[in-house]
């Protein structure tokens, strides 16, 4: 006699799911400050594991035993890091510091006053009408500066905390090693604890989520790298200063769908305006280059690398990025969408599997 499965009505199911989501979110928000360092460390390890995994599989494919395959990938990664430290990072740091020094020396108030007076000559009384008087501006600049610095400080604190742990204990490489070596055994042991009724569903779910996450993380990293390199090379060719920093900014912002590439125009535009002579020519070139890169990204890179997996509504992107920013500053904004994507894949696939296996 086959026992009949309990049937939950759709209304109750929705209520239960909503309660579950809200409760999970509240718990996450509550415990996040306590475990943020560890969480960042764990996420970093998982991301690097996903990046290294195909390399290990490739070595194994060639007949190399797993431990040696992992060692081989570690050595290759070390070579990449050493080469970056030798050639790429110093240039990046130099450019970064120089840029910060230039930005510090600029009198934004003077710029603003000249712009407002330019508008005032053409539209008399405009600045008073919109409440953009000199005092108001001082106030706004003050608020903006403190918000930005607090925002960056939060990220830096979070990153510094994780980096501290990283440097002191070298936990991340060890975690990556064990994830690569025994990750599948760990999953197997975990699934062994699952009740029989959910066993096949859980196994299928774990492998699907693993596959999707791996593809997503690898594709988004490759995409950002390609965009960053393209920006760097094209700006360098045009003789725009700080091309490497601008490439990094564009590559990073590209991880935020819809808004990231748009936001990128502002910091890059500002730097071009300050450093390029004549500024307007530089600005036009920059707009042409960034737009061309975006067209390339949307027509060729994204469909090829990510496919339809970036199916996130613009409103959701905005909300998620804001929540990420609130939780972990600028760093949070960058990892918000990948983190949301991870949760979305898990939740959507879990729901589909529960239905397919006739559990709900």
């Amino acid at each position, binding site marked *: 006699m086959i*026992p009949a499965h309990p049937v939950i009505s759709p209304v109750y199911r929705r209520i239960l799911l909503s309660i579950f989501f809200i409760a999970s979110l509240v718990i996450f928000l509550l415990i996040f400050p306590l475990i943020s360092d560890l969480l960042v460390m764990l996420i970093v390890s998982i991301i690097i594991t996903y990046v290294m995994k195909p390399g290990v*599989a490739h070595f194994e*494919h060639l007949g190399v035993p797993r431990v040696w395959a992992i060692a081989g990938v570690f050595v290759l990664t070390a070579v990449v890091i050493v080469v970056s430290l030798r050639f790429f990072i110093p240039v990046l740091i130099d450019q970064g510091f120089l840029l910060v020094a230039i930005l510090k020396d600029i009198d934004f108030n003077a710029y603003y006053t000249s712009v407002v007076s330019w508008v005032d000559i053409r539209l008399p009384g405009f600045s008073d009408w919109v409440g953009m008087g000199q005092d108001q501006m001082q106030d706004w600049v003050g608020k903006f500066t403190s918000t930005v610095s607090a925002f960056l400080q939060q990220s830096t604190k979070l990153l510094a905390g994780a980096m501290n742990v990283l440097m002191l204990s070298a936990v991340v490489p060890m975690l990556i090693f064990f994830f690569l070596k025994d990750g*599948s055994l760990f999953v197997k042991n975990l699934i062994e604890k699952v009740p029989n009724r959910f066993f096949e569903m859980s*196994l299928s779910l774990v492998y699907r989520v693993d596959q999707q996450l791996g593809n997503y993380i690898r594709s988004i990293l490759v995409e950002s790298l390609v965009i960053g390199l393209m920006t760097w090379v094209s700006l360098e060719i045009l003789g725009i200063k700080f091309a490497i920093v601008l490439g990094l900014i564009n590559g990073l912002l590209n991880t935020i769908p819809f808004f990231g590439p748009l936001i990128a125009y502002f910091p890059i535009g500002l730097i071009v305006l300050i450093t390029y002579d004549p500024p307007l020519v530089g600005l036009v070139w920059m707009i042409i280059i960034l737009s061309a890169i975006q067209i390339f990204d949307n027509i060729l890179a994204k469909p090829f690398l990510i496919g339809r997996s970036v199916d996130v509504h613009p409103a959701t992107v905005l909300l998620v990025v804001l929540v990420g920013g609130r939780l972990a500053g600028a760093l949070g904004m960058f990892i918000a969408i990948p983190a949301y994507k991870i949760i979305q894949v898990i939740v959507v696939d879990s729901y589909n599997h529960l239905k397919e*296996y006739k559990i709900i």
Partner: protein
Amino acid sequence: MNEQDDKMKTESYTTEVDWQPVVISKEKRDIDIKEILTSLSLFSKLSQRDWRELSDLFHQRIYSDGEIIFEYDTPGLGMYIIIEGSARVLNIDLGGVKTEVAILNKGDFFGEMSLVEEVYRSATVNAIGKTQLVGIFRPQLKDLMHRRPKLGLLLMERLAIIIINRLREANRRLAESRDRIRELEAK
């Protein structure tokens, strides 16, 4: 007849269980499992390294009497081998009527088609008495094929032979049934 046989098997199995020591060491259990699995053509004559690699993929499950192992029309993920106990295979026709088609025992395996292709289960299988199974599943096999293509190919080849043999047997039975029907119609 089937029911009586089934009852007898279940009873003899229960007696066997009663005489087993209460605690079986993990090593002993693993040796038993290895013995049963290597007696199957699918896993026989493998090198030590291949066996080690393969045994990492096996999932051991224990089902109680009547518990469903998998259900008709759910996604098939892999095959199971019976290590201890028995399993009942139930076919479900379009009208939803369940018919018992086979009783499987120690050393038998089922669900092998879904190791090759993503198919929905064509039958419901449930445990008779306490049943211990070892399962091997498609995602892990695919991963193994990518990492260790030689071993993966060997397993796929053996699996193909098993499926071909089962198809041949099904064709033979079908031909026999046709002959029988013709004979009955002639009478």
